[in-house]
């Protein structure tokens, strides 16, 4: 299998200034030496709590932010070295699907205009009829049928599920190789999620797209993904085949995540033991310790002395935890 995206020691820090005259600064590591590889024709799931850096990684892979350290290869070429013309081609080949279908579409522009814009930018040679045909065809792939009835609608005339389909159509119309889908269903009703997820799976199966699927919801992620990486405070703590991660989670954080999922089965007793104690705010300040040490029920002295290595414990199953040293 060929890799489409490869990140190498990617680190991104955000500096916040505060206090009198903004003299005090504090640094938060949103991404901390992240190494992931996404293969061609694969949906790569990225899960983690809010503030864990999942969206930042998505933005970094599309070169929408600058890095402090590390490099990201797209088909073997570092995207942060691309020059103007090459960057323009890269933009055509990568796209993003956003979380909020209510704010990611321009409210005063018709669906046709929103969806056709990528073609007008990247394929100036196409005639107006060709563009219309392509838009109709793309709207049909995402299940907006009959497509011609949607062309002149405005976002306000459509439901949330329909808007998210428009968002997907806009992302795939330029025929990208790689798509970042950032929480694409978290704003949608449960009954509408299923169809959107099935569309994403079909993009992979029928159009051979590769995708990074970012979500805080493991059940949704495992439904679409081939592999899953778990992120905690800017670090990847576990990575493996999605079925394997669910059945055999190794990292204590992954275990907590999976235990917390509500199971739609009234016979399963809700475990009323409180987990993790107090909720508290931790950020990654780049200390040389395990990022989960402050919350981990199995914490040992060694966890605070050094970072655990990210090791392959079983075939294709990686974990960063001293319990598996």
């Amino acid at each position, binding site marked *: 299998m060929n890799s489409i995206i490869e990140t190498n020691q990617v680190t991104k820090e955000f500096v916040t200034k505060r206090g009198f005259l903004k003299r005090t600064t504090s640094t938060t590591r949103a991404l901390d030496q992240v190494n992931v590889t996404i293969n061609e024709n694969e949906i790569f799931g990225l899960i983690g*709590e*809010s503030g864990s850096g999942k969206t930042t990684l998505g933005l970094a892979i599309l070169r929408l932010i600058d890095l402090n350290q590390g490099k990201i290869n797209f088909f073997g070429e570092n995207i942060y070295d691309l020059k103007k013309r090459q960057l323009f081609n890269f933009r055509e080949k990568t796209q993003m699907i956003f979380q909020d279908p209510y704010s990611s579409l321009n409210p005063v522009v018709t669906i046709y205009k929103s969806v056709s814009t990528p073609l007008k930018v990247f394929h100036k040679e196409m005639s107006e009829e060709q563009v219309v045909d392509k838009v109709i065809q793309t709207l049909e792939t995402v299940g907006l049928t009959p497509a011609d009835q949607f062309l002149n609608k405005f976002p306000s005339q459509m*439901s*949330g*599920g329909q808007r998210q389909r428009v968002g997907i159509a806009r992302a795939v119309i330029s025929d990208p190789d790689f798509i970042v889908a950032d929480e694409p269903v978290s704003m949608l*009703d*449960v*009954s*509408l*999620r*299923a*169809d*959107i*997820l*099935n569309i994403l799976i079909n993009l992979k199966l029928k159009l051979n797209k590769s995708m990074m699927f970012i979500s*805080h*919801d*493991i*059940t*949704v992620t*495992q*439904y679409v993904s081939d592999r899953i990486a778990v992120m905690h405070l800017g670090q990847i703590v576990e990575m493996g085949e*999605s*079925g394997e991660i*669910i059945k055999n989670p190794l990292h204590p954080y992954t275990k*907590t*995540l*999976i*235990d*917390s*999922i*509500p*199971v*739609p*089965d*009234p*016979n*399963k*007793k*809700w*475990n*009323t*033991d*409180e*987990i*993790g104690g*107090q*909720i508290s*705010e931790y950020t990654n300040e780049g200390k040389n310790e395990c990022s989960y040490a402050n919350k981990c029920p199995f914490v040992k002295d060694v966890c605070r002395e050094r970072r655990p290595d990210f090791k392959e414990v079983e075939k294709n199953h990686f974990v960063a935890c001293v319990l598996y040293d």
Partner: protein
Amino acid sequence: MMSFPLLEVKDISVEYGVDGKTIKAVNHVNLEINKGDVVAIVGESGSGKSTLAMTFLNLIEKPGRIRNGKVNYRGAKGVVDVLRMRPVDLMRYRWKEVSMIFQSAMNSLNPVMRIEGQLRDVMIEHGTDESLVDAKIDEKLKLAGLTTSIKKSYPHELSGGMKQRVNIALALACDPKLLIADEATTALDVVVQRQILTRLLKLKQDLSLSLVFITHDISLVANIAEIINVMYAGKIVERAFAKQLFENPLHPYTEALLQSIPTLEKGTAIKGIKGTPPDLSKEIKGCPFADRCPKMFDRCLAEPPELKNVGDNHYVSCHLY
């Protein structure tokens, strides 16, 4: 001895008048909540679940209006209709008898007031003795699973989960008998969500509270609610004990809803529900789910089904039964 419901909603209808149209958000709903019950109201956005909950506290404001119905509350002085209370009684009823954790709880705290002040305001406004307030603030924060040191913080200094717990502390401030949680954990991630729900269930046991959970996520309430009400287009379409509902869903909408949730078992394909919910500003002649229903037949388009008991307190509103 017959048990009387703590809160009894009778034939309530709520409308919103927007742009000259009348939207029937809640349509002739009946509901009972007994002491110590954990009741869930599940539905898609726009199904009227939040509007229904607002009527429990007589919180419907313009452009909404309550068309008809009663909300009977059994308090110390007997049964009273919340919708016809004098303002002064309503003040004693809200927070003290029934309180609510709101949907956008993340934003429902006053950003320029310390947590302590917000709790104090509620307590004093609703008649707590001044000399007891300080001790009560600490007590309520602990109940919600927070350290008392956070009372000096401002809301922006707290994480989402902590703010949500402050909201629980606020809702408990005046020792209510019934607590309504309206999408209380929707904006939080799973770990925090579970901590909050666990806390609420523990409070229910310790304080013999009654709880109402309002959510769009049916899998969330599967193992915490005793009775589940499924709402669709302003009506309750099915009501059953959680176990019955999951093992034997009767209404085609409930069935479809259950099929649309992804589970952790690999290989079970999930299906969405075709179509969109009906426009509630238009008159619906038959069953509101008819045009999305795979089992639809002629009668469904002609007359609306009634919510009927089909055995073992399993209620369903569908012509199939």
